[in-house]
């Protein structure tokens, strides 16, 4: 007999998904002009969850106009009044967190463990945090009475649908801006539930507008002349296109783009915890994290020992039904994404890297990719340079701290990095040389609303979170 965990599925009856959803404009759900719709499916089962309106350029125009109208009153409110709404939204999110966690897992494919224990608490925390700033903007370091920008056009990705919404909407509203947000095509549902939360909180009409659709909808939003500020999180390619669109206009822009984070393990690291940190760094949300620690740089003297430990640990990861509370690895978000991961992983093998994955059975329906690691990787391999955005770890080695820093920085990206060592002086010395927006020491993928987040180089510019996150939404 062995200790095999019985299934422990979270109930999906706590969430009520309607067969179809419209656009949320000026406080009302409306059909898309022309009536175009698209389907959103559950990545773990390919089941169609709902039909969602496909917003056109006209719909975007309607939404921006509603936001413009609402801006007059919203920006004139005292900060303490805006704070009341934000606190109310934060509390409703907490109250409805189980429902939202299940919804997010259904629509995105990530394990319920992560939506329940990471995403939702952070979503609420972001609203609470920026609610606290709303009446203290005079003390944020941008001079007395800093002014909002106007209408913010925001486009967010599918990897953390609700969390990215919170990162965008909470600071925008706290500073007095109004919002038109375009959620990702594959994960629109939690944003539509959030629209309902705005109504529940009594938020004035037009302050938050949600326009669902694909890349064309997003492009229309970014290009709209009534938008004063564009905020985008997503791929570097799309980020570059947005930068071109916005160039020459007086729109303010922040971009959070791709990454290829280096996770550096020195020979004096706490090995068992480093292994956990590596797992957390690359297998959290199936590696579909822009700041994932997708390049493991390990000191040559401990490489074999560390890899043995890592492989043993990967063999204990549980892949399967994301609604099961014991699942560690859920589904890949879409067939398209799965194809991209598969192609890049195959290129790793073709270029001579050694592929390893634990023996694990993949479900027959849905989009799945086993946690994978590549050894014998060099800086010249595609898998060491391009963002894979999936559960694929590339292992490289180094011999000296200087070499580690040089390799870590030898990337077009610069979003995150990790350092593992028991020696405090080494930690500080290396951290100060890394060209990355976030450097974690003896941990990885830790987020907090008080901590600014953003990139260097092709990982984008601007900061979200913390006091720094206010700047992007203020005329300073």
């Amino acid at each position, binding site marked *: *007999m*062995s*200790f*095999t*965990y*019985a*299934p*422990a599925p979270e109930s999906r009856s706590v969430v009520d998904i309607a067969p179809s959803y419209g656009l949320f404009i000026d406080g009302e759900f409306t059909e898309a002009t022309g009536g175009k719709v698209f389907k959103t499916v559950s990545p773990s089962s390919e089941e169609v969850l709902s039909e969602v309106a496909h917003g056109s350029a006209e719909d975007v125009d309607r939404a921006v106009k509603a936001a413009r109208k609402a801006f007059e009153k919203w920006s004139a409110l005292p900060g303490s009044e805006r704070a009341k709404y934000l606190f109310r939204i934060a509390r409703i999110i907490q109250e409805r967190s189980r429902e939202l966690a299940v919804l997010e897992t259904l629509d995105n494919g990530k394990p319920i*463990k992560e939506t329940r*224990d990471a995403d939702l608490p952070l979503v609420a925390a972001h609203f609470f945090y920026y609610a606290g700033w709303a009446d203290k903007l005079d003390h944020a370091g941008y001079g007395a009475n800093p002014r909002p920008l106007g209408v913010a056009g925001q486009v967010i990705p599918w990897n953390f649908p609700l969390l990215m919404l919170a990162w965008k909407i909470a600071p925008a509203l706290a500073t007095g801006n109004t919002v038109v947000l375009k959620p990702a095509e594959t994960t629109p549902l939690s944003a539509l539930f959030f629209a309902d939360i705005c109504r529940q909180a009594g938020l004035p009409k037009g302050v938050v507008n949600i326009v669902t659709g694909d890349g064309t909808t997003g492009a229309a939003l970014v290009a709209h002349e009534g938008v004063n500020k564009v905020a985008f999180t997503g791929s570097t390619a799309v980020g570059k296109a947005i930068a071109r669109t916005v160039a020459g206009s007086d729109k303010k822009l922040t971009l959070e783009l791709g990454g290829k984070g280096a996770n550096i393990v020195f020979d*004096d*690291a*706490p*090995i*068992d*915890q480093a292994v*956990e*940190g590596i797992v957390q760094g690359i297998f959290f949300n199936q590696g579909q994290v822009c700041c994932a620690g997708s390049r493991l740089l390990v000191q040559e003297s401990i490489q074999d020992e560390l890899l*043995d430990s890592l492989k043993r640990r990967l063999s*204990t990861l549980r892949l399967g039904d994301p609604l099961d*509370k*014991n699942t560690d690895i859920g589904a890949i978000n879409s067939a398209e994404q799965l194809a991209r991961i598969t192609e890049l992983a195959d290129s790793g093998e073709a270029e001579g890297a050694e592929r390893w994955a634990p023996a694990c059975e993949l479900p027959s329906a849905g989009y799945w990719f086993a946690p994978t690691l590549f050894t014998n990787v060099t800086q010249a391999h595609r898998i060491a340079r391009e963002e894979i955005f999936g559960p694929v770890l590339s292992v490289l080695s180094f011999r000296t701290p200087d070499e580690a820093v040089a390799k870590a920085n030898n990337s077009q990206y610069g979003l995150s990095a990790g350092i593992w060592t*028991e020696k405090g002086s080494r930690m500080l010395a290396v951290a100060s040389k890394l060209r990355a927006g976030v450097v974690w020491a*003896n*941990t990885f993928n830790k987020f907090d609303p008080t901590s600014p987040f953003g990139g260097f180089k092709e990982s984008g510019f601007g900061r979200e979170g913390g006091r720094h996150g206010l700047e992007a939404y203020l005329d300073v």
Partner: protein
Amino acid sequence: MPTTVPAHGNDAAGRLTELADVTASDSALRRFLHGLPGVDAVGLEARAASLGTRSIKTTAKAYAIDLAISMIDLTTLEGADTPGKVRALAAKAVNPDPTDRTTPRTAAVCVYPDMVATAKAALTGTDVKVASVATAFPAGRAALPVKLADTRDAIAAGADEIDMVIDRGAFLAGRYMDVFEEIRAVKAECADKARLKVIFETGELSTYDNIRRASWIGMLAGADFIKTSTGKVAVNATPSNTLLMLEAVRDFRALTGVQVGVKPAGGIRTTKDAVKFLVLVNETVGEDWLDNHWFRFGASSLLNDLLMQRQKLSTGRYSGPDYVTVD
């Protein structure tokens, strides 16, 4: 180039010989212990907590409850212990739930040395072992000859297992070799007559780095089991220190081929807690340790909670404290 290379490879004997060098002198042992990978407290506790969120239900829970019962060292370590109390405990170990004879027996009863004979007599003809806390338990503050005599007495009275405490004073003073030698001396006394469990009193060692070092001293000195604590101090077994010790026995086996058991003791009172510990074992060292030869719970009140949960699973209803025996 040196003409000889150190023995490497998978042969366990060769590796143990190689490790013998690290206990050749005080300074060699110190260098070895301080060269072990450090422990990051935040990371260790986060891992233990995340394993604590595993959801164990239905068949897995039934399996875990029976496994936990079979791993208990049913313990009474009070100054007020009497032969009657020990006989009652032995009866309960053999037949934990009089209403359900399918309930597994506990692994052992654990008593003071003067009670070993009583326990042994009460357990004759069963496979329940008698464990005894020797070596001036719980403080360990006695001269080595006294500790050895204590151990000898317990074994002579029939103890199958000896739970010894280490000299925490010597450890904290950095006299690692003294700790090592003392364990070795007691192990020699146990020889092949009794299995030796070495208690570190982790609450008094205070840091995780110390707990890892103590674990290695114990294993190098020949411990059959490493055990968290006596149950007599404020902080006893925790998921974190047990996880750390599991990692140590895992690493030791990988290096030497020798498997060492783990026993968290003190403070584990509920089924929920016990199941969390089993999850730690399952996901850290795996099936090889999911057996009462390699993993034990040092507990007395845990058994009743396990029995009540077991009754709940078989009847569908919660019983209550009156449906299990007080001792």
